């Protein structure tokens, strides 16, 4: 990999990172987009449909992924990690590690012959480990780039993939490579993780069979999901009574997470609506403290869900236990009437909150590559949110999307464009653009 000199480095290839990259590239800036996974798309590409329009999620994500891949001003660096960032004038010297794919991307055509031949089945994190893929595979059907990647942790080095590859792209000798990028600015789009299920003992600490996280439900509902239908992971049965437990990882001082995760109300309502479409007989209950449907069109979405028969019960779920048939039992005070109910459901979705991504770019002693101060909530600190919402403490480094706090897709995309505006102004004002821009030939 050659060293690069660019205007902006975007760290993170989720929806926010992609949007920032596109906005900068459309203005003619040279951009590099670094993604630690083998494909861009981030969390959004794993979702089913998006609220409040119920658009098919991949229909919105894949065109952006494709636009990123084809943009003449964007250097796409997948399966790469940022190792260090050093100030260099008003810009930065960044060291990037290219992790070995064991596949020559210049040869691979994404035909997946290797994948079909590979004897090793591996649980797929893309499907929240509900489904499986092979030790060598194209990460998912709409992955960008459409290139195979081999997982050395599971590979038996049997060589079958090498034998079937029609273009001799398999290369077991690949080594990690380091290269440098000189960038005039950086946009942090490092995204989020879910509050771990294990943290809340009262909710079974992740050990109950039919208590799942919301991203699992997204995979159940997604047309590309592992099963193509909603079922109980415990026994594969079709659930007829499904409950959402709101604030399962937010607004809870016992977890040390006091903030609101902002998206859970809406995704729970959205999933409830999608489930009622997929399982018309299913009864769905949402246990909540406050319904926070604050965005454009969100309140109406909530009212529609109520009208459709989704039951909303006010009360913080105190505990979830399991009966002998592995049915989760939810105990809650219905605060409107002051009664304690213990209800048995077939499936419970914990509306876990959003925590900052566990990216080693941000934390972890010696691996801390971009030293940026964090707020008390653990997200990247923004010193002046009411005058410069995307500007961090370090000049030339900007932040966008869920790296700066819980945010839905609309707000992430807007924030991504705003970060692009800040970064481009910074680059211009410091007068260190790298080269005359290229125009997208067939935009």
């Amino acid at each position: 990999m050659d060293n690069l000199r660019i205007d902006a480095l975007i760290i993170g290839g989720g929806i926010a990172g992609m949007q920032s990259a596109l906005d900068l590239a459309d203005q003619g800036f040279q951009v590099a987009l670094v993604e630690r996974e083998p494909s861009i798309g981030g969390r959004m590409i794993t979702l089913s449909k998006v609220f409040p329009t119920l658009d098919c999620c991949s229909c919105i994500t894949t065109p952006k992924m494709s636009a990123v891949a084809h943009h003449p001003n964007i250097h796409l660096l997948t399966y790469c990690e940022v190792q260090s960032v050093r100030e260099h004038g008003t810009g930065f010297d960044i060291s990037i590690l290219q992790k070995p794919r064991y596949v020559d991307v210049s040869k691979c055509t994404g035909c997946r012959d290797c994948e079909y031949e590979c004897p090793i089945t591996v649980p797929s994190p893309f499907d929240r480990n509900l489904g499986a893929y092979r030790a060598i595979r194209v990460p998912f059907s709409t992955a960008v780039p459409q290139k195979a990647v081999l997982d050395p942790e599971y590979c038996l080095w049997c060589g079958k993939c090498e034998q079937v590859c029609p273009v001799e792209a398999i290369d077991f000798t690949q080594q990690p490579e380091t290269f440098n990028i000189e960038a005039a600015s950086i946009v942090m789009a490092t995204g989020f993780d879910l509050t771990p299920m294990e943290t809340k003992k009262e909710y079974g600490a992740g050990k109950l069979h039919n208590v799942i996280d919301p991203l699992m439900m997204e995979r159940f509902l997604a047309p590309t999901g592992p099963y193509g239908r909603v079922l109980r992971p415990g026994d594969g049965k079709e659930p007829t009574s499904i409950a959402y437990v709101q604030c399962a990882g937010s607004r809870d001082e016992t977890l040390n997470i006091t903030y609101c995760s902002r998206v859970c109300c809406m995704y729970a309502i959205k999933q409830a609506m999608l489930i009622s479409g997929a399982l018309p007989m299913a009864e769905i209950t949402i246990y909540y403290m406050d319904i926070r449907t604050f965005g454009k069109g969100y309140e109406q979405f909530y009212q529609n869900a109520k009208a459709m028969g989704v039951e909303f019960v006010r009360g913080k779920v105190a505990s979830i236990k399991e009966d002998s048939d592995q049915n989760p039992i939810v105990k809650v005070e219905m605060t409107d009437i002051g009664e304690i109910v213990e209800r048995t459901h077939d499936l419970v979705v914990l509306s876990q909150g959003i925590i900052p991504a566990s990216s080693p770019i941000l934390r972890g002693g010696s691996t801390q590559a971009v030293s940026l101060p964090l707020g008390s909530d653990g997200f990247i600190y923004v010193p002046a949110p009411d005058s410069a919402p995307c500007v961090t403490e370090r000049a030339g480094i900007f932040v966008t999307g869920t790296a700066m706090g819980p945010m839905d897709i609309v707000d992430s995309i807007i924030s991504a464009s705003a970060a692009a505006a800040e970064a481009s102004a910074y680059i211009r004002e410091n007068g260190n653009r790298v080269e005359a821009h290229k125009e997208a030939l067939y935009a």
Partner: protein
Amino acid sequence: MSARVDPQFLTEIKKYGAVNIEACFNCGNCTAICPLSTNGETFPRRIIRYAQLGLKEPLLSSKELWLCYYCGECTRTCPKQANPGEFMAAARRYAIASYDPTGLAKALYTSPILSAIFLVLPALLIGLGIYAFHGPMPTNALKLFDFIPAGIIHNFGVIGMILLAVLLLAGMVNMSIKVKGEKTPGVHHDWMRALWETLIEVLTQQRYQQDCETEADKPVWYLQKWFIHASTLWGFLGLLVATALDYGLEVLGIKATGTWVPFWNPIRLLGTIAGLLLVYGTSMAFVRRIRKSDATSTYSTISDWAFLILLWLTGVSGFLLEIALYLPQPGIWAYWTLLFHISAAGELLILMPFTKFAHAMYRAIAIYFHALKPVPVAEPAKAGAD
């Protein structure tokens, strides 16, 4: 019926403790996690809500206040760390003060200076008073009741008991009237059964035992909060019974107080075992409060400490006396111990209606009303059926 808010009420209750309860946002977690809260009698949130809005009457008339054993589950899991368990304790203190017609309980709970005076003064007075009537302290043989005539103790005791009973009764009636609520005409209650259930519950502390420990981290039985509490209660009751029996024997002229009996004498044996239990229970409670083992022992008022200390002192001094009785050559200390024991016990009795001690009665009343169920009314025979 609408109720008017009183924003000052919570401030009033907060004088009795209730650390951080203002953080409560009424999510209901406490009520649902509570092993004792049941429909029809939900708590703690209901009580917290009454306090927040200043609905004083519903709060004082709620038996739920006393159904809580303060296991601390609500406090441990509260998403706002508003400490509902401690609030319940504070609300109980507030209630004790409200039921108490003398106003002493309120002073004890809310004024550290007054409570300090009240804690030391009566004991001192009792001690001095009794000392004024004291006799010799023979050293050749232990003759405790030569030193202080049993009659004085008994008379003081009986007078004290009567006064105490009056005060307690006033508080109990106060509470009962509030908790009972309006009588529904035509509905009869099975009060016999309720009394029986109350007795069983008071003696066995079953609810505490069954519901108040989380299964997962239950310690060995003798370290459980339930056992510590129960051993204190049994110890106290045992000593009370032993003392009463002893007095009864004298009244009946069977055996004069102070007559030497072997340690296997049934009454003495009961006293010994009860004393051991009391000392164990109170000592463990001490340790827990000092270590702040969990939410339930984190916050302690002077009044809580006073109650505990007096129980412990009474227990330990009583026990020392018993040892002294069986020692071949007891020292002069035994007489002082007796004086101390009587002062402490007297103080304990005096404090009963005004401190945490009062929960013994109020809880019993609450349990009684909790157990009181309407008697199923027999279906009237259908007219014209024959």
